[in-house]
Protein backbone atom coordinates (compact mmCIF):
# COMPACT_ATOMS: atom_id res chain seq x y z
CA UNK A 1 0.00 0.00 0.00
CA UNK A 2 1.29 3.43 -0.90
CA UNK A 3 2.37 5.46 2.09
CA UNK A 4 -0.26 8.02 3.05
CA UNK A 5 0.85 11.60 3.00
CA UNK A 6 0.33 13.24 6.37
CA UNK A 7 0.16 17.03 6.44
CA UNK A 8 -0.45 19.62 9.12
CA UNK A 9 -3.20 22.13 8.53
CA UNK A 10 -6.24 23.97 9.87
CA UNK A 11 -9.70 22.46 9.63
CA UNK A 12 -10.78 25.22 7.27
CA UNK A 13 -7.83 24.54 4.99
CA UNK A 14 -8.62 20.83 5.05
CA UNK A 15 -12.13 21.56 3.78
CA UNK A 16 -10.72 23.49 0.82
CA UNK A 17 -8.11 20.90 -0.10
CA UNK A 18 -10.54 18.02 0.31
CA UNK A 19 -13.11 19.73 -1.92
CA UNK A 20 -10.62 20.16 -4.76
CA UNK A 21 -9.59 16.52 -4.40
CA UNK A 22 -13.20 15.31 -4.33
CA UNK A 23 -13.84 16.75 -7.77
CA UNK A 24 -15.75 19.84 -6.69
CA UNK A 25 -17.18 21.92 -9.52
CA UNK A 26 -17.67 25.17 -7.67
CA UNK A 27 -17.34 27.14 -4.46
CA UNK A 28 -19.26 30.33 -3.72
CA UNK A 29 -18.56 32.20 -0.51
CA UNK A 30 -18.19 35.42 1.38
CA UNK A 31 -15.50 36.11 4.03
CA UNK A 32 -16.32 35.79 7.71
CA UNK A 33 -14.23 34.80 10.73
CA UNK A 34 -13.55 32.02 11.75
CA UNK A 35 -13.86 30.35 8.34
CA UNK A 36 -12.27 32.74 5.83
CA UNK A 37 -9.40 30.30 5.25
CA UNK A 38 -11.72 28.15 3.14
CA UNK A 39 -12.01 30.80 0.42
CA UNK A 40 -8.43 32.00 0.97
CA UNK A 41 -7.04 28.50 0.53
CA UNK A 42 -9.12 27.90 -2.58
CA UNK A 43 -8.00 31.24 -4.06
CA UNK A 44 -4.40 30.36 -3.35
CA UNK A 45 -4.72 26.87 -4.81
CA UNK A 46 -6.26 28.19 -8.09
CA UNK A 47 -8.14 24.96 -8.87
CA UNK A 48 -9.67 26.58 -11.97
CA UNK A 49 -6.24 26.12 -13.56
CA UNK A 50 -5.92 22.47 -12.57
CA UNK A 51 -9.21 20.65 -12.08
CA UNK A 52 -11.38 23.38 -13.63
CA UNK A 53 -13.19 24.02 -10.36
CA UNK A 54 -14.78 27.49 -10.22
CA UNK A 55 -14.22 29.70 -7.17
CA UNK A 56 -16.34 32.84 -6.77
CA UNK A 57 -16.22 35.41 -4.00
CA UNK A 58 -19.86 36.46 -3.90
CA UNK A 59 -21.23 39.84 -2.83
CA UNK A 60 -22.99 38.35 0.19
CA UNK A 61 -24.00 35.07 1.76
CA UNK A 62 -27.38 35.66 0.18
CA UNK A 63 -25.75 35.54 -3.22
CA UNK A 64 -23.45 32.63 -2.25
CA UNK A 65 -26.30 30.35 -1.28
CA UNK A 66 -28.27 31.24 -4.38
CA UNK A 67 -25.23 30.50 -6.52
CA UNK A 68 -25.10 27.15 -4.75
CA UNK A 69 -28.81 26.72 -5.52
CA UNK A 70 -28.04 27.37 -9.20
CA UNK A 71 -25.05 25.05 -9.37
CA UNK A 72 -26.77 22.27 -7.45
CA UNK A 73 -29.77 22.43 -9.77
CA UNK A 74 -27.41 21.74 -12.66
CA UNK A 75 -26.20 18.56 -10.93
CA UNK A 76 -22.83 20.09 -10.11
CA UNK A 77 -20.82 19.43 -6.95
CA UNK A 78 -21.01 22.84 -5.34
CA UNK A 79 -20.57 24.19 -1.85
CA UNK A 80 -20.36 27.25 0.30
CA UNK A 81 -18.97 27.95 3.73
CA UNK A 82 -19.64 30.60 6.31
CA UNK A 83 -20.02 31.19 10.01
CA UNK A 84 -23.12 31.77 12.08
CA UNK A 85 -24.28 35.29 11.03
CA UNK A 86 -23.63 34.42 7.39
CA UNK A 87 -25.49 31.14 7.72
CA UNK A 88 -28.46 33.04 9.15
CA UNK A 89 -28.47 35.16 6.02
CA UNK A 90 -28.55 32.00 3.88
CA UNK A 91 -31.63 30.45 5.44
CA UNK A 92 -34.10 31.36 2.71
CA UNK A 93 -31.83 29.83 0.09
CA UNK A 94 -31.24 26.71 2.18
CA UNK A 95 -35.00 26.23 2.43
CA UNK A 96 -35.25 26.50 -1.37
CA UNK A 97 -32.43 23.96 -1.85
CA UNK A 98 -34.13 21.53 0.54
CA UNK A 99 -37.50 22.09 -1.14
CA UNK A 100 -35.96 21.65 -4.59
CA UNK A 101 -34.37 18.39 -3.31
CA UNK A 102 -30.96 19.45 -4.54
CA UNK A 103 -27.57 18.05 -3.52
CA UNK A 104 -25.50 20.82 -1.97
CA UNK A 105 -22.88 21.10 0.73
CA UNK A 106 -22.92 23.94 3.26
CA UNK A 107 -20.20 24.40 5.86
CA UNK A 108 -20.93 26.33 9.07
CA UNK A 109 -17.91 27.02 11.25
CA UNK A 110 -19.86 28.27 14.24
CA UNK A 111 -19.03 31.33 16.30
CA UNK A 112 -20.83 32.67 19.34
CA UNK A 113 -24.06 34.63 18.95
CA UNK A 114 -26.69 35.95 19.06
CA UNK A 115 -26.26 38.96 16.81
CA UNK A 116 -22.79 39.76 15.64
CA UNK A 117 -21.71 38.04 18.88
CA UNK A 118 -18.11 36.95 19.03
CA UNK A 119 -15.60 35.43 16.65
CA UNK A 120 -14.76 32.82 19.27
CA UNK A 121 -15.98 29.21 18.86
CA UNK A 122 -19.48 28.13 19.75
CA UNK A 123 -22.02 25.40 19.11
CA UNK A 124 -25.06 27.57 19.43
CA UNK A 125 -26.39 26.98 15.89
CA UNK A 126 -27.46 23.40 16.70
CA UNK A 127 -31.14 24.33 16.69
CA UNK A 128 -30.81 26.30 13.47
CA UNK A 129 -29.00 23.46 11.69
CA UNK A 130 -31.05 20.54 13.00
CA UNK A 131 -34.54 21.91 13.45
CA UNK A 132 -35.08 23.65 10.14
CA UNK A 133 -33.48 27.08 10.25
CA UNK A 134 -35.36 28.46 7.29
CA UNK A 135 -39.08 28.37 6.65
CA UNK A 136 -41.14 25.26 6.04
CA UNK A 137 -40.88 21.62 7.11
CA UNK A 138 -37.49 20.40 5.99
CA UNK A 139 -34.29 18.87 7.28
CA UNK A 140 -30.65 19.08 6.38
CA UNK A 141 -28.34 16.14 6.87
CA UNK A 142 -26.00 17.55 9.53
CA UNK A 143 -22.48 16.20 10.06
CA UNK A 144 -20.45 17.27 13.11
CA UNK A 145 -16.69 16.84 12.69
CA UNK A 146 -14.53 16.54 15.81
CA UNK A 147 -11.12 16.71 14.15
CA UNK A 148 -9.33 18.22 11.18
CA UNK A 149 -9.31 14.72 9.71
CA UNK A 150 -13.08 14.60 9.89
CA UNK A 151 -13.29 18.06 8.32
CA UNK A 152 -11.47 16.58 5.32
CA UNK A 153 -13.40 13.29 5.33
CA UNK A 154 -16.85 14.80 5.68
CA UNK A 155 -16.53 16.77 2.46
CA UNK A 156 -16.73 13.61 0.38
CA UNK A 157 -19.20 12.01 2.78
CA UNK A 158 -21.36 15.12 2.70
CA UNK A 159 -21.55 15.18 -1.09
CA UNK A 160 -22.12 11.43 -1.23
CA UNK A 161 -25.09 11.72 1.12
CA UNK A 162 -26.35 14.87 -0.60
CA UNK A 163 -26.37 13.25 -4.05
CA UNK A 164 -27.67 9.92 -2.79
CA UNK A 165 -30.64 11.51 -1.08
CA UNK A 166 -30.99 14.71 -3.13
CA UNK A 167 -30.82 16.70 0.05
CA UNK A 168 -28.61 19.55 1.24
CA UNK A 169 -25.98 18.47 3.73
CA UNK A 170 -24.36 20.72 6.33
CA UNK A 171 -20.99 20.26 7.96
CA UNK A 172 -21.60 21.87 11.35
CA UNK A 173 -18.18 22.55 12.81
CA UNK A 174 -17.30 24.82 15.69
CA UNK A 175 -14.65 27.51 15.44
CA UNK A 176 -12.16 25.29 17.27
CA UNK A 177 -12.22 22.64 14.55
CA UNK A 178 -12.00 25.30 11.84
CA UNK A 179 -9.00 27.06 13.34
CA UNK A 180 -7.14 24.18 14.98
CA UNK A 181 -4.11 22.71 13.20
CA UNK A 182 -3.83 18.95 13.21
CA UNK A 183 -2.36 16.12 11.24
CA UNK A 184 -4.54 15.11 8.33
CA UNK A 185 -4.49 12.64 5.49
CA UNK A 186 -6.26 14.26 2.57
CA UNK A 187 -8.57 12.18 0.37
CA UNK A 188 -7.20 10.82 -2.91
CA UNK A 189 -7.77 12.86 -6.08
CA UNK A 190 -11.02 12.19 -7.91
CA UNK A 191 -11.54 13.81 -11.30
CA UNK A 192 -14.50 16.14 -11.75
CA UNK A 193 -17.42 14.41 -13.40
CA UNK A 194 -17.80 14.95 -17.13
CA UNK A 195 -20.96 16.46 -18.63
CA UNK A 196 -21.91 12.97 -19.76
CA UNK A 197 -21.45 11.53 -16.27
CA UNK A 198 -23.55 14.31 -14.76
CA UNK A 199 -26.25 13.71 -17.35
CA UNK A 200 -26.21 9.99 -16.59
CA UNK A 201 -26.43 10.60 -12.84
CA UNK A 202 -28.71 13.65 -12.68
CA UNK A 203 -30.26 13.89 -16.15
CA UNK A 204 -33.76 13.16 -14.88
CA UNK A 205 -33.89 16.46 -12.99
CA UNK A 206 -30.80 18.67 -13.53
CA UNK A 207 -31.10 21.96 -15.42
CA UNK A 208 -28.11 21.43 -17.66
CA UNK A 209 -29.84 22.90 -20.68
CA UNK A 210 -29.16 19.72 -22.61
CA UNK A 211 -31.28 17.21 -24.35
CA UNK A 212 -32.34 14.84 -21.62
CA UNK A 213 -32.98 11.13 -22.08
CA UNK A 214 -36.61 11.53 -21.08
CA UNK A 215 -36.92 14.00 -23.97
CA UNK A 216 -38.45 16.78 -21.88
CA UNK A 217 -37.08 19.96 -20.40
CA UNK A 218 -36.11 19.94 -16.74
CA UNK A 219 -37.58 22.50 -14.36
CA UNK A 220 -36.37 23.15 -10.83
CA UNK A 221 -39.04 25.00 -8.92
CA UNK A 222 -40.28 25.00 -5.36
CA UNK A 223 -43.61 26.67 -6.15
CA UNK A 224 -46.87 24.72 -6.11
CA UNK A 225 -50.00 26.78 -5.62
CA UNK A 226 -52.39 23.81 -5.39
CA UNK A 227 -52.58 22.76 -1.76
CA UNK A 228 -53.34 19.12 -2.58
CA UNK A 229 -50.18 18.95 -4.69
CA UNK A 230 -48.10 20.82 -2.12
CA UNK A 231 -49.19 18.36 0.54
CA UNK A 232 -47.96 15.54 -1.67
CA UNK A 233 -44.59 17.32 -2.02
CA UNK A 234 -44.36 17.63 1.75
CA UNK A 235 -45.33 14.02 2.27
CA UNK A 236 -42.58 12.94 -0.12
CA UNK A 237 -40.05 15.02 1.82
CA UNK A 238 -41.24 13.64 5.14
CA UNK A 239 -40.99 10.06 3.86
CA UNK A 240 -37.38 10.77 2.87
CA UNK A 241 -36.62 12.19 6.32
CA UNK A 242 -38.10 9.11 8.04
CA UNK A 243 -35.97 6.91 5.77
CA UNK A 244 -32.86 8.95 6.62
CA UNK A 245 -33.60 8.50 10.33
CA UNK A 246 -33.57 4.75 9.77
CA UNK A 247 -30.52 4.51 7.52
CA UNK A 248 -28.04 7.36 7.90
CA UNK A 249 -27.46 7.77 11.65
CA UNK A 250 -23.76 7.94 12.54
CA UNK A 251 -22.14 8.18 15.95
CA UNK A 252 -19.08 7.28 17.95
CA UNK A 253 -19.47 5.42 21.26
CA UNK A 254 -16.45 5.68 23.55
CA UNK A 255 -15.94 3.88 26.84
CA UNK A 256 -19.66 3.13 27.08
CA UNK A 257 -19.24 -0.50 28.12
CA UNK A 258 -19.88 -0.74 31.86
CA UNK A 259 -20.13 3.03 32.27
CA UNK A 260 -22.20 4.39 35.16
CA UNK A 261 -22.68 7.77 33.57
CA UNK A 262 -22.92 9.02 30.00
CA UNK A 263 -21.77 12.23 28.41
CA UNK A 264 -23.24 13.32 25.10
CA UNK A 265 -21.22 15.87 23.15
CA UNK A 266 -20.38 16.71 19.52
CA UNK A 267 -17.49 18.42 17.76
CA UNK A 268 -14.70 19.75 19.93
CA UNK A 269 -16.89 19.47 23.05
CA UNK A 270 -16.63 15.70 22.56
CA UNK A 271 -12.83 15.92 22.65
CA UNK A 272 -12.91 17.82 25.91
CA UNK A 273 -15.39 15.25 27.23
CA UNK A 274 -13.00 12.44 26.30
CA UNK A 275 -10.25 14.05 28.31
CA UNK A 276 -12.66 14.52 31.23
CA UNK A 277 -13.61 10.84 31.00
CA UNK A 278 -9.93 9.82 31.27
CA UNK A 279 -9.44 12.02 34.32
CA UNK A 280 -12.65 10.76 35.92
CA UNK A 281 -11.53 7.16 35.37
CA UNK A 282 -8.48 7.87 37.56
CA UNK A 283 -10.91 8.81 40.33
CA UNK A 284 -12.80 5.56 39.74
CA UNK A 285 -15.79 7.21 38.06
CA UNK A 286 -16.83 5.27 34.97
CA UNK A 287 -18.15 7.59 32.28
CA UNK A 288 -18.93 6.83 28.64
CA UNK A 289 -19.24 9.22 25.68
CA UNK A 290 -21.79 9.13 22.92
CA UNK A 291 -20.72 11.50 20.17
CA UNK A 292 -23.33 12.05 17.46
CA UNK A 293 -21.61 12.34 14.09
CA UNK A 294 -24.90 13.00 12.37
CA UNK A 295 -26.69 15.63 14.43
CA UNK A 296 -29.58 15.11 12.07
CA UNK A 297 -30.65 12.35 11.76
CA UNK A 298 -30.01 12.18 15.50
CA UNK A 299 -28.76 8.95 17.13
CA UNK A 300 -31.90 8.62 19.21
CA UNK A 301 -32.02 4.83 19.39
CA UNK A 302 -28.49 4.27 20.65
CA UNK A 303 -28.85 7.00 23.25
CA UNK A 304 -32.06 5.36 24.39
CA UNK A 305 -30.32 1.98 24.69
CA UNK A 306 -27.27 3.38 26.50
CA UNK A 307 -29.42 5.44 28.85
CA UNK A 308 -30.97 2.26 30.27
CA UNK A 309 -27.64 1.25 31.81
CA UNK A 310 -26.51 4.57 33.30
CA UNK A 311 -27.49 6.64 36.31
CA UNK A 312 -27.54 9.89 34.41
CA UNK A 313 -26.52 11.76 31.28
CA UNK A 314 -24.69 15.06 30.94
CA UNK A 315 -24.89 16.85 27.60
CA UNK A 316 -21.77 18.98 27.19
CA UNK A 317 -22.19 21.72 24.60
CA UNK A 318 -20.76 25.17 23.85
CA UNK A 319 -24.22 26.68 24.11
CA UNK A 320 -27.04 27.26 26.59
CA UNK A 321 -28.55 23.81 26.11
CA UNK A 322 -29.67 22.79 22.65
CA UNK A 323 -28.77 19.18 21.85
CA UNK A 324 -29.77 18.30 25.40
CA UNK A 325 -33.40 18.56 24.31
CA UNK A 326 -32.91 15.73 21.83
CA UNK A 327 -30.98 13.71 24.39
CA UNK A 328 -33.86 14.10 26.86
CA UNK A 329 -36.31 12.93 24.24
CA UNK A 330 -34.11 9.90 23.53
CA UNK A 331 -33.33 8.88 27.10
CA UNK A 332 -35.35 6.18 28.84
CA UNK A 333 -37.97 7.55 31.26
CA UNK A 334 -36.59 8.47 34.64
CA UNK A 335 -32.97 8.83 33.58
CA UNK A 336 -31.77 12.28 34.62
CA UNK A 337 -30.43 14.35 31.71
CA UNK A 338 -28.64 17.62 32.42
CA UNK A 339 -26.76 20.14 30.35
CA UNK A 340 -23.41 21.78 30.92
CA UNK A 341 -22.08 24.51 28.68
CA UNK A 342 -20.09 27.70 28.53
CA UNK A 343 -21.28 30.61 26.47
CA UNK A 344 -19.95 33.54 24.50
CA UNK A 345 -17.05 31.64 22.95
CA UNK A 346 -15.60 30.18 26.16
CA UNK A 347 -14.34 26.61 25.92
CA UNK A 348 -14.83 24.63 29.15
CA UNK A 349 -11.89 22.68 30.58
CA UNK A 350 -12.07 18.91 31.28
CA UNK A 351 -12.02 19.76 35.02
CA UNK A 352 -15.10 21.92 34.63
CA UNK A 353 -16.84 19.05 32.87
CA UNK A 354 -16.05 16.64 35.71
CA UNK A 355 -17.19 19.20 38.25
CA UNK A 356 -20.47 19.67 36.40
CA UNK A 357 -20.91 15.92 36.18
CA UNK A 358 -20.44 15.58 39.92
CA UNK A 359 -22.69 18.49 40.77
CA UNK A 360 -25.51 17.88 38.32
CA UNK A 361 -25.55 14.09 37.87
CA UNK A 362 -23.56 12.22 40.52
CA UNK A 363 -24.59 14.59 43.34
Amino acid sequence: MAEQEVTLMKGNEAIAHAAIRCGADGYFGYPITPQSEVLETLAEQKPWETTGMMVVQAESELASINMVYGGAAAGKKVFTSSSSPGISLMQEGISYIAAGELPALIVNVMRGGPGLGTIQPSQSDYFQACKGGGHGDYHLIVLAPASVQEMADFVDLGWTLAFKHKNPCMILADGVIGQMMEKVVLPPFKPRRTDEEIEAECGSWATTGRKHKHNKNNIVTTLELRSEEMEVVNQRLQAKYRMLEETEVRYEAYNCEGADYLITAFGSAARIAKKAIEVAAQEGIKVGLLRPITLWPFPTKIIHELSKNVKGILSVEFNAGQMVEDVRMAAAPGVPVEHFGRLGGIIPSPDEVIEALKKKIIK
Partner: protein
Amino acid sequence: MTREEIIQPENLVYKKPTLLNDEPMHYCPGCSHGVVHKLVAEVIEEMGMEEKTIGVSPVGCAVFAYKYIDIDWQEAAHGRAPAVATALKRLMPDRLVFTYQGDGDMACIGTGETIHALNRGENIVIIFINNAIYGMTGGQMAPTTLIGQKTATCPYGRDVKLHGYPLKMTEIAATLAGTCYVTRQTVYSVGAINKAKKAIKKAFQLSMEGKGSSLVEIVSTCNSGWKLTPEKANQWMEENMFPFYPLGDLKDNSTKE
Protein backbone atom coordinates in the same frame (compact mmCIF):
# COMPACT_ATOMS: atom_id res chain seq x y z
CA MET B 1 -57.64 27.71 -54.47
CA THR B 2 -58.80 25.57 -51.57
CA ARG B 3 -57.85 26.18 -47.98
CA GLU B 4 -55.65 23.07 -48.02
CA GLU B 5 -53.75 24.32 -51.03
CA ILE B 6 -53.01 27.59 -49.30
CA ILE B 7 -51.76 25.95 -46.09
CA GLN B 8 -48.37 24.93 -47.47
CA PRO B 9 -44.91 25.39 -45.95
CA GLU B 10 -43.83 27.76 -48.74
CA ASN B 11 -46.75 30.06 -47.95
CA LEU B 12 -45.91 30.29 -44.26
CA VAL B 13 -45.27 33.89 -43.20
CA TYR B 14 -45.58 33.56 -39.44
CA LYS B 15 -45.75 30.80 -36.90
CA LYS B 16 -45.67 30.36 -33.17
CA PRO B 17 -42.22 29.33 -32.01
CA THR B 18 -42.09 25.58 -31.33
CA LEU B 19 -40.55 26.21 -27.91
CA LEU B 20 -43.67 28.09 -26.86
CA ASN B 21 -46.06 25.32 -25.83
CA ASP B 22 -49.86 25.31 -25.81
CA GLU B 23 -50.28 25.81 -22.07
CA PRO B 24 -52.72 28.73 -21.63
CA MET B 25 -50.81 31.67 -20.14
CA HIS B 26 -51.95 33.03 -16.79
CA TYR B 27 -51.14 36.63 -17.75
CA CYS B 28 -53.89 39.25 -17.83
CA PRO B 29 -55.08 40.36 -21.26
CA GLY B 30 -52.88 43.20 -22.49
CA CYS B 31 -49.95 42.29 -20.25
CA SER B 32 -46.50 42.61 -21.83
CA HIS B 33 -45.13 39.42 -20.25
CA GLY B 34 -46.68 37.13 -22.86
CA VAL B 35 -45.26 39.07 -25.79
CA VAL B 36 -41.77 39.06 -24.30
CA HIS B 37 -42.03 35.30 -23.66
CA LYS B 38 -42.75 34.78 -27.33
CA LEU B 39 -39.75 36.88 -28.35
CA VAL B 40 -37.45 34.95 -26.02
CA ALA B 41 -38.69 31.66 -27.46
CA GLU B 42 -38.26 32.90 -31.03
CA VAL B 43 -34.72 34.12 -30.42
CA ILE B 44 -33.60 30.90 -28.74
CA GLU B 45 -34.98 28.96 -31.68
CA GLU B 46 -33.41 31.21 -34.28
CA MET B 47 -30.07 30.81 -32.52
CA GLY B 48 -30.50 27.02 -32.47
CA MET B 49 -29.96 27.03 -28.71
CA GLU B 50 -33.02 24.94 -27.77
CA GLU B 51 -30.87 22.26 -26.17
CA LYS B 52 -28.33 24.60 -24.64
CA THR B 53 -30.31 27.19 -22.74
CA ILE B 54 -31.20 27.61 -19.08
CA GLY B 55 -33.67 30.30 -18.07
CA VAL B 56 -33.97 31.60 -14.52
CA SER B 57 -37.46 32.74 -13.64
CA PRO B 58 -38.18 35.28 -10.89
CA VAL B 59 -40.68 35.70 -8.12
CA GLY B 60 -43.30 37.92 -9.66
CA CYS B 61 -45.94 37.40 -12.31
CA ALA B 62 -43.36 35.67 -14.51
CA VAL B 63 -42.62 33.05 -11.88
CA PHE B 64 -44.36 30.53 -14.14
CA ALA B 65 -42.34 31.42 -17.24
CA TYR B 66 -41.12 27.83 -17.03
CA LYS B 67 -44.57 26.56 -17.87
CA TYR B 68 -44.65 28.16 -21.28
CA ILE B 69 -41.20 27.92 -22.88
CA ASP B 70 -39.87 24.37 -23.18
CA ILE B 71 -36.27 24.86 -22.13
CA ASP B 72 -34.58 23.97 -18.85
CA TRP B 73 -35.60 26.44 -16.15
CA GLN B 74 -34.77 27.18 -12.60
CA GLU B 75 -37.11 29.23 -10.45
CA ALA B 76 -35.11 31.54 -8.18
CA ALA B 77 -36.00 33.11 -4.85
CA HIS B 78 -37.26 36.71 -4.99
CA GLY B 79 -34.45 38.86 -6.41
CA ARG B 80 -31.78 36.17 -6.51
CA ALA B 81 -31.96 35.18 -10.18
CA PRO B 82 -28.66 36.88 -11.15
CA ALA B 83 -26.81 34.88 -8.45
CA VAL B 84 -28.41 31.65 -9.67
CA ALA B 85 -27.55 32.55 -13.26
CA THR B 86 -23.96 33.41 -12.26
CA ALA B 87 -23.39 29.88 -11.03
CA LEU B 88 -25.11 28.25 -14.01
CA LYS B 89 -23.03 30.21 -16.51
CA ARG B 90 -19.75 29.86 -14.61
CA LEU B 91 -20.22 26.12 -14.33
CA MET B 92 -21.49 25.66 -17.90
CA PRO B 93 -19.90 28.42 -20.01
CA ASP B 94 -21.11 26.97 -23.31
CA ARG B 95 -24.80 27.30 -22.37
CA LEU B 96 -27.02 30.32 -22.89
CA VAL B 97 -28.10 31.58 -19.48
CA PHE B 98 -30.60 34.38 -18.93
CA THR B 99 -32.79 35.70 -16.15
CA TYR B 100 -36.26 37.11 -16.61
CA GLN B 101 -37.21 39.51 -13.82
CA GLY B 102 -39.76 42.13 -12.82
CA ASP B 103 -38.88 45.51 -11.37
CA GLY B 104 -39.61 44.48 -7.79
CA ASP B 105 -37.51 41.36 -8.20
CA MET B 106 -34.61 42.88 -10.08
CA ALA B 107 -34.53 46.52 -9.01
CA CYS B 108 -35.61 46.26 -5.39
CA ILE B 109 -35.11 43.08 -3.40
CA GLY B 110 -32.44 41.86 -5.82
CA THR B 111 -30.55 45.11 -6.37
CA GLY B 112 -27.38 43.70 -4.84
CA GLU B 113 -27.34 40.52 -6.90
CA THR B 114 -28.19 42.48 -10.05
CA ILE B 115 -25.47 45.10 -9.72
CA HIS B 116 -22.78 42.64 -8.70
CA ALA B 117 -23.55 40.06 -11.37
CA LEU B 118 -23.54 42.80 -14.01
CA ASN B 119 -20.42 44.39 -12.61
CA ARG B 120 -18.54 41.09 -12.53
CA GLY B 121 -19.31 40.91 -16.22
CA GLU B 122 -21.01 37.54 -15.95
CA ASN B 123 -21.83 36.37 -19.46
CA ILE B 124 -25.54 36.35 -18.77
CA VAL B 125 -28.52 38.38 -19.95
CA ILE B 126 -31.05 40.00 -17.67
CA ILE B 127 -34.44 40.61 -19.22
CA PHE B 128 -36.00 43.26 -17.04
CA ILE B 129 -39.76 43.76 -17.21
CA ASN B 130 -40.41 47.25 -15.88
CA ASN B 131 -44.13 47.77 -15.31
CA ALA B 132 -43.64 50.28 -12.49
CA ILE B 133 -45.64 48.16 -10.07
CA TYR B 134 -45.76 44.86 -8.17
CA GLY B 135 -48.13 42.87 -10.35
CA MET B 136 -48.17 39.52 -8.63
CA THR B 137 -48.88 40.69 -5.12
CA GLY B 138 -51.71 42.97 -6.18
CA GLY B 139 -50.37 46.29 -7.37
CA GLN B 140 -48.13 47.71 -4.65
CA MET B 141 -45.49 50.40 -5.14
CA ALA B 142 -42.32 49.31 -6.95
CA PRO B 143 -38.93 51.03 -6.94
CA THR B 144 -39.80 52.08 -10.48
CA THR B 145 -43.26 53.52 -9.66
CA LEU B 146 -43.48 57.03 -11.12
CA ILE B 147 -43.85 60.11 -8.95
CA GLY B 148 -47.57 60.67 -8.42
CA GLN B 149 -48.50 57.18 -9.62
CA LYS B 150 -51.16 55.54 -7.46
CA THR B 151 -50.65 52.01 -6.18
CA ALA B 152 -52.07 49.90 -3.36
CA THR B 153 -49.32 51.07 -0.99
CA CYS B 154 -49.22 54.67 -2.21
CA PRO B 155 -52.95 55.18 -2.79
CA TYR B 156 -52.53 58.97 -2.89
CA GLY B 157 -49.73 58.74 -5.43
CA ARG B 158 -45.99 58.27 -5.00
CA ASP B 159 -44.75 61.12 -2.88
CA VAL B 160 -40.97 61.62 -2.87
CA LYS B 161 -41.06 62.87 0.71
CA LEU B 162 -42.58 59.58 1.80
CA HIS B 163 -41.35 57.11 -0.80
CA GLY B 164 -38.23 58.51 -2.41
CA TYR B 165 -37.59 58.60 -6.14
CA PRO B 166 -38.15 56.04 -8.88
CA LEU B 167 -35.00 54.03 -9.54
CA LYS B 168 -33.42 53.83 -12.98
CA MET B 169 -31.61 50.52 -12.76
CA THR B 170 -30.87 50.42 -16.45
CA GLU B 171 -29.05 53.76 -16.27
CA ILE B 172 -27.07 52.39 -13.32
CA ALA B 173 -26.28 49.21 -15.25
CA ALA B 174 -24.90 51.25 -18.14
CA THR B 175 -22.27 52.77 -15.83
CA LEU B 176 -20.96 49.37 -14.75
CA ALA B 177 -17.72 48.22 -16.35
CA GLY B 178 -18.95 44.62 -16.59
CA THR B 179 -21.89 45.38 -18.88
CA CYS B 180 -21.53 45.16 -22.61
CA TYR B 181 -24.98 45.97 -23.92
CA VAL B 182 -27.66 47.88 -22.05
CA THR B 183 -30.85 48.84 -23.76
CA ARG B 184 -34.43 49.92 -23.04
CA GLN B 185 -37.21 48.65 -25.28
CA THR B 186 -40.95 48.15 -25.24
CA VAL B 187 -43.44 45.82 -26.94
CA TYR B 188 -46.54 47.98 -27.41
CA SER B 189 -46.49 48.06 -31.20
CA VAL B 190 -45.34 45.85 -34.06
CA GLY B 191 -42.34 48.10 -34.70
CA ALA B 192 -41.39 48.11 -31.04
CA ILE B 193 -41.75 44.33 -30.84
CA ASN B 194 -39.38 43.88 -33.76
CA LYS B 195 -36.84 46.19 -32.15
CA ALA B 196 -37.15 44.46 -28.79
CA LYS B 197 -36.59 41.10 -30.44
CA LYS B 198 -33.44 42.36 -32.13
CA ALA B 199 -32.19 43.65 -28.79
CA ILE B 200 -32.84 40.33 -27.04
CA LYS B 201 -31.09 38.46 -29.82
CA LYS B 202 -28.10 40.77 -29.71
CA ALA B 203 -27.82 40.40 -25.95
CA PHE B 204 -28.07 36.60 -26.14
CA GLN B 205 -25.42 36.49 -28.86
CA LEU B 206 -23.05 38.75 -26.93
CA SER B 207 -23.35 36.56 -23.87
CA MET B 208 -22.35 33.54 -25.96
CA GLU B 209 -19.40 35.49 -27.35
CA GLY B 210 -18.23 36.11 -23.79
CA LYS B 211 -18.49 39.88 -24.08
CA GLY B 212 -19.94 40.41 -20.60
CA SER B 213 -23.33 41.12 -19.12
CA SER B 214 -26.29 42.52 -20.98
CA LEU B 215 -29.46 44.10 -19.69
CA VAL B 216 -32.58 44.42 -21.81
CA GLU B 217 -35.24 46.48 -20.09
CA ILE B 218 -38.74 46.18 -21.49
CA VAL B 219 -40.99 49.06 -20.44
CA SER B 220 -44.18 47.11 -19.90
CA THR B 221 -47.84 47.38 -19.08
CA CYS B 222 -49.61 45.97 -16.06
CA ASN B 223 -53.28 46.47 -16.83
CA SER B 224 -54.49 44.89 -13.63
CA GLY B 225 -52.08 46.79 -11.42
CA TRP B 226 -52.68 50.06 -13.23
CA LYS B 227 -56.41 49.34 -13.42
CA LEU B 228 -56.54 50.29 -17.10
CA THR B 229 -57.82 48.52 -20.21
CA PRO B 230 -55.10 47.20 -22.52
CA GLU B 231 -55.59 50.14 -24.88
CA LYS B 232 -55.59 52.76 -22.11
CA ALA B 233 -52.58 51.10 -20.52
CA ASN B 234 -50.56 51.46 -23.70
CA GLN B 235 -51.59 55.08 -23.90
CA TRP B 236 -50.68 55.69 -20.25
CA MET B 237 -47.32 54.02 -20.78
CA GLU B 238 -46.58 56.20 -23.77
CA GLU B 239 -47.55 59.39 -21.99
CA ASN B 240 -46.01 58.71 -18.58
CA MET B 241 -43.44 55.94 -18.73
CA PHE B 242 -41.55 56.78 -21.92
CA PRO B 243 -40.67 60.35 -20.88
CA PHE B 244 -39.13 59.09 -17.65
CA TYR B 245 -37.77 55.82 -19.06
CA PRO B 246 -36.67 56.84 -22.57
CA LEU B 247 -36.33 54.03 -25.09
CA GLY B 248 -33.13 53.12 -26.91
CA ASP B 249 -29.62 51.80 -26.31
CA LEU B 250 -27.85 53.16 -23.24
CA LYS B 251 -24.62 51.32 -23.87
CA ASP B 252 -23.33 49.24 -26.72
CA ASN B 253 -19.80 47.84 -26.53
CA SER B 254 -20.64 45.00 -28.90
CA THR B 255 -18.14 46.05 -31.54
CA LYS B 256 -15.35 46.76 -29.03
CA GLU B 257 -12.70 44.10 -28.72
